[in-house]
């Protein structure tokens, strides 16, 4: 019998993701993939590579067909299975007609639901990841909607979930490597950038997380006509009106706004989980130290 899940309620911008779409930046396609890669990886319980990424408001679904196992990881959510409150961050077997409800809780932006099954959508350019900006991958390039029925291709060779070690998400200091345009900013601006707090704005999405610059660190900076260079996730760009934006997994492939720095890979997952109105600080790190440091 075919197994599937039927979506009965869903947050905005819930998407199918995997580890991303690689080696396509020169064709104008960024990698996409889970916003919090470490949390996504924790939920891997079979050889299946894809999973569902949800945002704060969560998701409800019903399981149809044969049983399946599901791992719940990422930001903090309340989980109800057939109405019974269950601990988040665990693997549960789900039988035919099981109702699953995932509701917002204390912290974080992105949660993950992975099954011992591949989500039955066609890989596009080698990946099932959804790129909402371009409309590629996942379910016809769009977000998951109510009444969607997503097929599950069960992988019988299940591995247990690694002990759900909680990654420490509380730290609000993020390490960055000085960027390709750091020298275009005055010494004063750079000093302020590494000492003043920034606030995550409500406008966050898979393309980028915008910051409020309450201390006016970039208010007086006017940097014009830079030639476009390729972008990477974690780049901290300063827009024309002085708004800093941290580029995330669905970033534009190239850009000409000045980049003061790039958040290191290890810290970007934690940054993705900082909710709007959180205070964050940036701390420079040398490339050498960033590459040698263990967790």
């Amino acid at each position: 019998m075919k197994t599937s899940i039927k979506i009965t309620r869903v947050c905005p911008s819930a998407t199918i993701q995997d580890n991303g779409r690689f080696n396509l930046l020169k064709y104008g396609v960024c990698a996409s993939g889970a916003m919090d890669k470490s949390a996504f990886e924790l939920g891997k319980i079979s050889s299946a590579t894809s999973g569902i990424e949800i945002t704060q408001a969560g998701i409800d679904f019903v399981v149809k067909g044969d049983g399946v196992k599901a791992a719940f990881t990422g930001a903090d959510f309340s989980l109800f299975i057939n109405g019974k409150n269950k601990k988040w961050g665990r693997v549960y077997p789900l039988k035919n007609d099981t109702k699953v409800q995932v509701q917002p809780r204390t912290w974080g932006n992105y949660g993950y639901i992975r099954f011992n099954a591949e989500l039955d959508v066609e890989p596009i350019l080698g990946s099932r990841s959804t790129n909402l900006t371009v409309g590629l991958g996942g379910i016809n390039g769009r977000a998951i909607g109510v009444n969607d029925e997503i097929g599950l291709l069960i992988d019988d060779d299940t591995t247990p979930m690694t002990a759900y070690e909680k990654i420490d998400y509380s730290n609000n200091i993020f390490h960055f490597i000085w960027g390709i345009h750091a020298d275009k900013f005055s010494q004063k601006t750079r000093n302020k950038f590494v000492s003043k707090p920034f606030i995550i704005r409500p406008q966050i999405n898979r393309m980028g997380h915008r910051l409020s610059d309450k201390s006016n660190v970039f208010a007086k900076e006017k940097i014009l006509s830079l030639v476009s260079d390729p972008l990477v996730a974690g780049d901290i760009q300063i827009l024309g009106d002085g708004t800093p934006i941290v580029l995330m997994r669905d970033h534009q492939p190239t850009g000409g706004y000045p980049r003061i720095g790039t958040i290191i890979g290890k810290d970007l997952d934690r940054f993705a989980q900082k909710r709007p109105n959180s205070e964050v600080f940036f701390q420079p790190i040398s490339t050498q130290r960033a590459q040698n440091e263990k967790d």
Partner: protein
Amino acid sequence: MNILPKIMPLGDSAALMRFSPMLDGEANKRAIEFAKFLVTQNHPAITQITPSLVSVLISYDFAKISYNNLIGELRLVYSLMPKIIGEVETKIHKIDIVFDGEDLAEVTHNLSLSIEEFIELHNEKSLRVLTTGFAPGFIYTGMHPNELHLPRREVIKPSVPAGSVLFAAGQTAITATAIPTGWHVIGNTKFLNFNTKNNPPTILNSGDLISFKSVKK
């Protein structure tokens, strides 16, 4: 001219090799050629090579090579690169354009040319694909002669469809997906440089030559 590129870290997993701080024809060629040459080296730690207007992004696995060692190897590869450009055969593509864009009249007026004169000058010589990658399948071609140089528009159009032929800053660009743009729309083409059924998904590459032809709708 011997161009000495600047190498900078871009985060902990990429390096940017920049051949000029501004748009420059020689630096553009050098960046494209270097990216092609680097691909042929099959470096085990390099995961992605992305040429851009005057730079090349080199993504790598720092578990396999440190940034400092990578810089050394990139400089070595650059020194081994043939100094004479053009050993690789350049592809020439023909693209048909319907010159009927909503900004064409304004463009020709600002250039003090008739539409016929503009089309003739625009198509006169083959243009090079300067870079790709701004959006899926999007290409920039250049450079036009000086009498065809016009700045961008002041107001950004929220969306132009795939196949739009855009014009500004001495260049002609072609969209392959719907995008916002600050460029002038001078026409459209049926040529679509992006197809997810193919891998690679595009036909045109940086450095290719494009010959434009004016066709009726």
